[in-house]
């Protein structure tokens, strides 16, 4: 399949939809007493944005396998959009937590970070995405050089693992949500491992 026309613009618009919905629904529920997000809109909005962070991480990591399997090489240039949206949703998730959930209560924030490992793990996962977001421009890629840039951007795997662990540790007993993400990420990782081994065995005989 060739790249559909205006795919980039459509992707950006589509990626904005959950965020616009979440922010509109949160504002409406809090200020106007609607129940778009249910009876506990702050918790629901927080979870909604957190799950979309993981979904965008999945999409980001699905670009390479899709490109290679289907031959859609044009997808590659949109990986940055998806990665930046993963980061943006993570930041929104974190902001809802700090501003609306913890409500800037420093005591609660400090005890949360110290005493609740899943908060620390989630924050770390988001923090690891920060250098990736900063180095996502063409200029930065050129400055880093492809090899070093690629190595740095392997951090996204750590973010994905930390994100799933964070989700897993936060649920009471129903692990269906986090385990679904775990399986999808495991498949995406396995593909890379398989690709990497295949390349290694192909290269090895040539060297001997």
């Amino acid at each position: 399949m060739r790249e559909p026309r205006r795919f980039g613009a459509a992707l950006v618009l589509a990626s904005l939809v959950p965020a616009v919905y979440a922010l509109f629904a949160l504002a409406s529920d809090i200020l106007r007493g609607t129940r778009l997000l249910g009876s506990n809109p702050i918790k629901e909005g927080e979870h909604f944005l957190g799950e979309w962070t993981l979904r965008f991480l999945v999409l980001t990591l699905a670009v390479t396998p899709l490109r290679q399997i289907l031959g859609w090489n044009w997808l590659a240039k949109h990986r940055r959009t998806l990665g930046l949206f993963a980061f943006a949703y993570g930041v929104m998730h974190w902001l809802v937590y700090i501003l609306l959930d913890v409500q800037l209560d420093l005591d609660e924030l400090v005890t949360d970070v110290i005493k609740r490992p899943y908060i620390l793990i989630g924050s770390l996962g988001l923090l690891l995405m920060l250098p990736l977001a900063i180095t996502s421009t063409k200029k930065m890629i050129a400055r880093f050089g492809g090899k070093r840039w690629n190595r740095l951007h392997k951090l996204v795997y750590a973010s994905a693992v930390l994100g799933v662990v964070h989700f897993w540790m936060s649920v009471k007993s129903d692990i269906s949500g986090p385990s679904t993400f775990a399986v999808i990420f495991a498949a995406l990782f396995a593909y890379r491992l398989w690709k990497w081994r295949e390349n290694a065995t192909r290269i090895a005989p040539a060297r001997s």
Partner: protein
Amino acid sequence: MLIGRPKDLKSSEITPESLYVNRREWLTSAAAGAAALSVFGPAAQAQDPQPVGKPFGLQRDDKPTPWQDVTTYNNFYEFGTDKAEPAQNATKFKTSPWTITVDGMAGKPGKYLLEDFIKPSTVEDRIYRHRCVEAWSMVIPWRGIPLADVIKRAEPMASAKYVAFTTLMDPKQMPGQQLGVLDWPYTEGLRLDEALHPLTLLATGVYGRTLPNQNGAPIRLVVPWKYGFKGIKSIVKLTFTDKQPKTAWNTQRAEEYGFYSNVNPAVDHPRWSQAKERRIGEFLKRPTLPFNGYADQVASLYAGMDLKKNY
């Protein structure tokens, strides 16, 4: 089955309308506190039932949580782990005929039809505070009978120290029981003195109406000074015993959910603070009260106990 309003409920015992209808006054005070962030709680719909009942332990700014929230935001894992699911999945749940078994160390064990189980007692409407272990809270107008009535009729033996409760086991009707999220059927328990406390209720209704299925129909436990999960739903069995009974959440994660589970702002859940709570419909969190505001009535039950150990 509709359990009627008790004949002896005087109109003076019903919460004054101003307490729950006069939102404006409350809004003014909330607006003063929240300044620019003036916050409106979810609106009660005109066609929704009005809260009825005598307030118990309500604080000055406590007003009943709207019907819609009470009946659509439910933790009832038998019908799904998402809080909106019980209202969707429990619509066809069959609550009549309903049989309740009383067994164990009781002088008068027996099997009763729900109607006969309730009949000897006076049904009362009571407005209680409700605090979930997940740090949200509501104010709920329950309708029910004191558990003490039922216990006295069963004549527990002197050696009985606890009463255990069991929920219906019916995976066909309760799809959540097909999943391994808890060790089904749901079980709960109280020490006998807790069970006999006049605040402990067996609820058969809410907002003056028959209990909706998603709220634990046809009969559920309400212990207002304990975290909500102690309020076992759709009860089919009461067992008197001399050993501390096994309870569902304690079996699932003992370090997080104790047998007592009294509301206590000073004892955190391992994964979150219990110091504050979000009242459904409110923006700013409010402080959680020891024993959920019922300390005067129940703290003596736990005199001399280390509440950090006996969480």
